[in-house]
């Protein structure tokens, strides 16, 4: 893999992004059993590199359309941590005013126009944002992010077809953890989705546990989109460390995870230290900042009000 051409500060920014997402996951693991978050959580633990690597190539006004597994994408795209944490805690200050929970996050300021828990449909929403850019002659990009399971759904096919026919600036981002709940890909998806996508648009590939690989491939894919105005596809195999939903670790016999080797954060850490882009002290400083941000966000959330049930009276 080619090493991305970035300034040192940008490498550190990727690191901070990864860490911010991971730290939120760890906070959820800690408190979830206390029932303080009344919402089903689909953790992005171990998969952080995909969203972070891609979003580092996006502007604030570029759009990211998410499904049910939202945390990494939302934070990487720029949603303030407070807004997400408050939503998880069910407070009115949450990004969706407490109406959404973990699966439905909203921050149009950062190109997040809402996420969906019905698998697949959000792919079409991203294409719609691409159409919007095209009609308004904006040179933004819309990213539809989805899993291998979503590739089963007809809306995946229809969305690629329309994006290709109408030549829309859409990145189809496949975050492929090889699982749909407990079903391995071999049971739910017959063909290689990237091979299919190549009949519609240029396809790119990255190691979804390696943020630099993702960054580089996304950079090329986004470059292609900005150049042609048409869609591109980016396939990122990655690993899901936790069960599909909730706070238990994955224990499927056919899934093999090495929590050190496969960890996007440790991978980047090793690279940064090895190439002298950062010192251990610098990384520690970042970790402290991230911890502080989370603590602030949690305090903010806990101090925020719950909604008033009377809003539901007719």
């Amino acid at each position, binding site marked *: 893999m080619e090493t991305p051409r970035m300034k040192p500060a940008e490498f550190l920014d990727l690191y901070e992004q990864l860490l911010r997402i991971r730290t939120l996951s760890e906070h959820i693991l800690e408190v979830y059993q206390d029932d303080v978050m009344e919402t089903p959580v689909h953790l992005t633990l171990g998969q952080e590199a995909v969203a972070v690597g891609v979003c580092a190539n996006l502007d604030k006004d570029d759009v990211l*359309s998410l499904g049910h597994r939202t945390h990494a994408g939302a934070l990487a795209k720029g949603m303030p941590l407070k807004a997400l944490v408050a939503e998880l805690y069910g407070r009115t200050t949450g990004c969706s005013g407490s109406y959404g929970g973990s699966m439905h996050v909203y921050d149009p300021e950062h190109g997040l126009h809402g996420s969906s828990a019905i698998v697949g449909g959000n792919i079409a929403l991203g294409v719609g944002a691409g159409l919007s850019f095209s009609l308004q002659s904006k040179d933004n990009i819309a990213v539809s992010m989805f899993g291998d399971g979503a590739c089963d759904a*007809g809306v995946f096919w229809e969305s690629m077809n329309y994006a290709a026919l109408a030549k829309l600036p859409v990145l189809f981002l496949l975050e492929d953890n090889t699982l749909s709940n407990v079903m391995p890909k071999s049971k739910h998806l017959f063909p290689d989705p990237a091979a299919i996508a190549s009949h519609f648009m240029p396809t790119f590939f990255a190691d979804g546990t390696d943020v630099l690989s993702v960054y580089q491939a996304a950079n090329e894919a986004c470059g292609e989109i900005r150049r042609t105005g048409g869609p591109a596809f980016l396939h990122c195999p990655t690993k899901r460390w936790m069960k599909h939903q909730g706070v238990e670790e994955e224990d499927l016999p056919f899934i093999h995870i090495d929590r050190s080797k496969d960890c996007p954060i440790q991978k980047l850490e090793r690279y940064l230290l090895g190439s002298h882009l950062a010192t251990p002290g610098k990384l520690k400083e970042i970790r402290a900042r991230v911890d502080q941000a989370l603590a602030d966000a949690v305090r903010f959330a806990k101090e925020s009000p719950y909604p008033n049930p009377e809003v539901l009276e007719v």
Partner: protein
Amino acid sequence: MPWSRFEKQWSIVEDGRILSYKDAVREAIDQAMCLDPKVFAIGLDADDCYGVYGTMLDLSHPERVLGTPISENAMTGVALGAALTGMRPIHIHMRADFLPVAMDQITNYVSKWKAMFGGKPKVPLVIRAVVGRGWGCGAQHSQSLHGMFAHLPGLKVVTPATPRDAKGLLLQAISEDEPVLVLEHRWLYKNEGAVPEEMYTIPFGKGNYLRRGGALTLVAPSLAAIHALKACEEHDLDVDLIDPRTIKPLDREMILESVQRTGRLLVVDYDSPACGFASDVLALVAEEAPDVLKRRAGRMTFPDVPMPSSGVLERRFYPDPERIAARVKAMIGITQSEEAFV
């Protein structure tokens, strides 16, 4: 197929500029597109030489009329995505029967989006679909389905009956920041009536009296309203005829006020009966004013079976002006007495 030879339905005789229902729809779209560059139309065959039965022809901005593949579900998501990012799409379907293909998007996305994010998003999305019954089209090409859509929280359901309403309600729909489903009846397309040339909107949730009378309240949307009007005019019936204009929101006040005066209620609805619009209106009266009823309330709807293809059956399937008149007469005619509560 004799769509082209298809006759007009009953029209209201009015002064003013006379326009057909189809042309009123076309004018609304054209004016909206001229006023606001964010407005665009998209739909399967919306851009072809037939232009959805003429409503999309000769527009000032043909470049904002987009065709689509046969992908109603994804395309609804595309329209929603565009609506959320600054555009005002009108998504067009040649038949309401194709909407179930897009039902995931309509149920789980379009109608939920605003509430699901705490009321923050604007969702300026209009879905236009034509109810296309006729000429043996059969079970899959004749459905109304407004009752099904009205069940979904978050979706407004609009059923214009007159050319004037077709334009004004569509312009209102396009101006809304919430999703609106406009169901136009193919049988009304040739009907004519007075339609103002300027842009105007007709508010949702406000019914329209097509006729005033004192003996019975007749509630009927879309084509049923026009057939009911014909029945009343030809048979000189003493009827308060309410076209609700929008199934949802519903003008509850107008209906209740009328029933309170007449004491008799008949709903004519060209849709399936179970959990439908006719049920909803009768329920309203049962809930708010059952004591004012001098007689049992009545429903005239489709039989609760799918539409058959054979012309002989198809013609019997829909209520028609003659049968509406007969029903009204039966409900008014019986002298009121203790036992007459039948």
